[in-house]
């Protein structure tokens, strides 16, 4: 491992030309008793300052593993990263020493999780936990840290922050806990925020509050936001661009408007078509046939081929590369033209 030197760290702020964060051909494998689980097989995406990238996928698609690799919080072993780069302001995070990564983790790239209750420590007050960020990373005193905690709780719109700063996590509702998580994650003004299913555990009305809050915070600070979700509705609401993942690969990359208008991968198209729609009430829903693949034993060729209505012979033999459709769009389907022109259900 390289020794920690100040110049090993990615440059602060500055007018970077490239994207803020770029994941490039990332592979993550898990060595298990039953064999090698290829959770991530060559994922590439980028996110710029002030931009929202939605990573859409089902459980097991590798979307969370990719995020954990970015954060450097994968358990290694069993996880192994055989290939790939994660460039943050041009510096490959995977080549940094553990010390240097700690400088980045939580301070410059932060993450919020689905389950805010288990992510918070039940035996400390929320104020203590938020102010810990300042005490540990900024060397602030207890009193100053608490003052900052109240400020942050105000910023994430927790009512009566001054009083509630002394409460424990279980005394808050699910939505409020998620706000506390958000407060902790933005405490040190990160440049990239990764939100892993931040609203999945919440009710719709609370989900709307949280998504609005995230959008506001992003506008204020120009963070790059990576939103990991399986919810096509949430994506349509907030994302600038989308990376659709299936079986550890990106199958489609596109700006949000394009993808909903005309998906270029059969999986994306299937997902969009299976959303219940008013004008189709009473009819059978379109359903993608079959089951998500077994990561231990991926189908040959294109991973989606057993479930794909567009399948031809070469789909079983040749894995499709990510075909470039336009400067901002790509699809990992040999027949993306047909899919693009195809009727929406």
């Amino acid at each position, binding site marked *: 491992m390289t020794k920690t030197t100040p110049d090993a760290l990615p440059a602060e702020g500055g007018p970077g030309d490239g994207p803020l964060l770029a994941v490039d051909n990332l592979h993550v494998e898990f060595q298990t*008793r039953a064999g090698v*689980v290829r959770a991530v097989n060559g994922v590439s995406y980028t996110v710029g300052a002030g931009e929202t990238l939605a990573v859409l996928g089902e459980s097991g698609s590798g979307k969370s593993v990719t995020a954990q690799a970015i954060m450097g919080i994968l358990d290694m072993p069993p996880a192994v990263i055989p290939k790939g780069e994660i460039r943050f302001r041009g510096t490959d995070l995977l080549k940094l020493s553990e010390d240097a990564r700690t400088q980045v983790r939580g301070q410059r790239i932060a993450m919020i999780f689905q389950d805010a209750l288990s992510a918070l420590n039940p035996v400390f007050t929320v104020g203590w936990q938020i102010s810990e960020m300042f005490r540990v990373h900024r060397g602030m005193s207890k009193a100053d840290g608490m003052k900052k905690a109240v400020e942050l709780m105000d910023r994430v719109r927790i009512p009566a922050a001054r009083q509630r700063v002394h409460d424990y996590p279980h005394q808050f509702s699910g939505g409020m806990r998620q706000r506390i998580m958000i407060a902790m994650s933005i405490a040190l003004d990160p440049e990239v925020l990764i939100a892993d299913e931040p609203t999945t555990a919440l009710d719709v009305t609370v989900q709307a509050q949280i998504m609005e809050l995230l959008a506001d915070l992003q506008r204020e600070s120009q963070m790059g936001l990576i939103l990991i979700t399986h919810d096509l509705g949430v994506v349509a609401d907030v994302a600038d661009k989308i990376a659709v993942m299936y079986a550890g690969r990106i199958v489609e990359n596109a700006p949000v408007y394009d993808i909903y208008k005309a998906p270029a991968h059969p999986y994306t198209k299937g997902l969009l078509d299976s959303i219940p729609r008013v004008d189709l009430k009473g009819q059978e829903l379109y359903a993608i046939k*079959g089951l998500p693949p*077994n*990561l231990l*034993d991926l*189908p040959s060729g294109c991973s989606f081929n057993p479930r794909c209505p567009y399948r031809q012979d070469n789909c079983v033999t040749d894995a499709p590369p990510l075909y470039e459709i336009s400067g901002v769009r790509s699809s990992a389907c040999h027949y993306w033209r047909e899919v693009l022109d195809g009727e929406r259900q």
Partner: protein
Amino acid sequence: MSNPTPPVGPGLPETQTMVSDTVTAPAPHRQGKHKQAKGGKPASLWTDAWYDLRRRPMFILSVVIILILLVMSFWPQLFTSVDPFNARTCDLSTARQGPSAGHLFGRDNLGCDVYARTIYGARNSIVIGVLTTIITTLVGGLFGIVAGYKSGLVDSVSSRLTEVFFAIPPILGALLIAATFRGRANSILLVIIALAVLGWPMTYRIMRAAVITAKSQDFVVAARALGAGAGRIMFRHLLPNSVAPVIVVATINLGGFIAAEAALSFLGVGVLSPDISWGLMIADARDRFLEAPLPLIFPAVFLCVTVLAFIMMGDAVRDALDPKLR
């Protein structure tokens, strides 16, 4: 419990129906919820545990020792041609003689063959250990299921009751029972009863806790919704899902009971002569230990190895069945 090994999906073939019949790993679907999630073929608790156990040298070693002990207690003749119950095999004039070709471990205070007595002593240890374990597991397990399932008054009363038993130091309690009823029943039976009376609350606690965890699962609610009665829910649904920790405790306890038997026999309230027991042999040899240490050392070593083997096996089973307890 038999479990067919799940076939590995040969990469989804043609999906004729809406649902493919190929089995996929559910593990990745629960990503994040369970630690074992990442990969790994779906395997049931027992297949997993068996896989794990086969790879533990400690487990294999303890199983080998236990198998030898079992053979020893059922067919001691296989190990020695001397019958220690036959008084003619003893010869006072050879008392405390050291090892010789015919008498590997030498002779004890009465000139009997220590090797033969040690071999024959295994039977009582094993019988007492196994029977006590069976009784405590059945009694404690049954009470545990009922208390865990019923909750409320039944649970409160039986839990308070077990706390009373927990308050009694086990050896002291067993000593009291064994000494009080000494001579009124077969000495071996008495040891079993004394140990079982004080041993069952442990199993009760474990079972009750496991049942309470299992009870909250949806499949129990589903069974109630189908109209299943208490018996069916307890024995068809709760028992198979909470028996694992009980098995672990039973194995570990078995070793403990064997040690406790030796202790009681040593104190003179356990197995009585002419029956043979390691504890008894140790007690007999104690007086002349400095002169002739071997009659004490051999049964003591056998006792230690036996107890250790069961505890080791219990440890391995626990690690395999419930890694969280480690």
